[in-house]
C-alpha cells in the first residue's frame, strides 16, 4: 500500500509501506494492507511506518489520516 505524508511546507514522504502506526485521538492504531476506509484525527505522538528498508518514526503534534483502498494520506502540521 502507498503512504503519503504531507505538510503545508512539503511532501515529507511518499512510497510503499507495509504498515503504519499512528496516534489517533481515541488511541494508537495500526493500519495494514486492506484496512477499512477510515478518517481519523491524530494527536501528539509518534508515527511509525515500515518500508522496504526498515521502520521509520516521526514525532507529530497533530494531524489527520485518511485510509482508502490501500492509499494512506497523512496530513501533518509539522
Amino acid at each position: 500500500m502507498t503512504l503519503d505524508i504531507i505538510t503545508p511546507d512539503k511532501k515529507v514522504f511518499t512510497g510503499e509501506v507495509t504498515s503504519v502506526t499512528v496516534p489517533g485521538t481515541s488511541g494508537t492504531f495500526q493500519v495494514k494492507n486492506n484496512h477499512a476506509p477510515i478518517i481519523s484525527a491524530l494527536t501528539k505522538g509518534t508515527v511509525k511506518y515500515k518500508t522496504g528498508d526498515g521502520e521509520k518514526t516521526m514525532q507529530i503534534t497533530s494531524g489527520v489520516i485518511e485510509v482508502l483502498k490501500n492509499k494512506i494520506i497523512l496530513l501533518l502540521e509539522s
Partner: protein
Amino acid sequence: MGSLKEVRNRITSVTSTQQITKAMKMVSAAKLRRAQDAIIQMRPYAGKLKEILENLSENLESSAGGAYAKQRPVKKILIIAVTSNRGLCGGFNANVIRNINLKIANEYAAQAKEGNVKVLAIGKKASDYFSKKPELFEGQYNSVYAHLTFANVSPIAEKIMKDFADGMYDKVEIVYNQFKNAAVQNVVTEQFLPIQPPAKDKSNKSKKVSDYIFEPGKEEIVQDLIPKSLKITLFKAVLESHAGEHGARMTSMNKATDNAQELIKSLKLSYNKARQAAITGEILEIVGGAEALKG
C-alpha cells in the same frame, strides 16, 4: 545642452543604475521561482484537507463550524493587510493600502467612526503606513518573511482565531495580492472569519465513498480540521502575496531597466552631438587661423 563632462557623468550614473535594476530583476526572478514552488508544495495539503472537510460536512448540520462559524452582527472588524517588507515593486503595496482605505471609507464607515475597525499588518509597508494611524493600527508581523514557513504563519492565525472566538472581532478579512502570473497581481479580499458555509455543490460529480470509519466522530474531526484549514487560508494568502511581490518587482525592475536603456540612448546622442560640435568648432578655428596666415 550640458557640457561634455556633465553628459558623460550622467551616462555613467544611468548605466550603473541600470546595472542595479537588472541585478534586482534577476534576483527577483530567482526568488519568484522559489516562492512559486512553495505555493505548489502547499497545494496537495490544502487540496486534501478541503476534500476531507467537504466529505465530512456533506452529512453534517451546518452548525458544525463551532465558534469560528458564528455569525454576529458586524460591529468590530479586523482587516489583515498582507504586503511586502520591501519596496521597489511598483504599485504592489500601494494597491493593498488603497483598497483597505476605500473599504474603511465606504463599506465600514459606520464601524470606523466608532473606532471599531482595526488593521493588522503583515509586511513592513503596511505597518509603516498604518502605524501612523493609531486609531486603526492593531499590530504587525513583519518577521514572517524571513522564514516563510507554515510553522511561522500559524501562530498569527491562531491568535486571530482566538480573538474572534473571544468576541474581540465580529468579522476578519484578509486583503492581499493574489498571484496570477509574474506580471499580474490582483488585490483580493477574502473573508477569514466567520467561516462562510461552503457553497452548495449541486453537481455531485465526485463519487462519494462515504462508508468511512470516523474516529473519534465526524463532528470532532470537523472541529479539529477547521482551525487547520483556517491556518492554511492565511498561509496561502501570505504565500501568494510573497510570490506576487517578486513578480511585481521583476516586472517593475524590467521596466526600469528598459527606461534606463532609453535614457542612455538619448544621452549618448546628445553626448555625440556635443562632441561633434566641439570638433567642428576646433576645425573652424584652425581653418580660420590658416586662412589668416595665408592672407
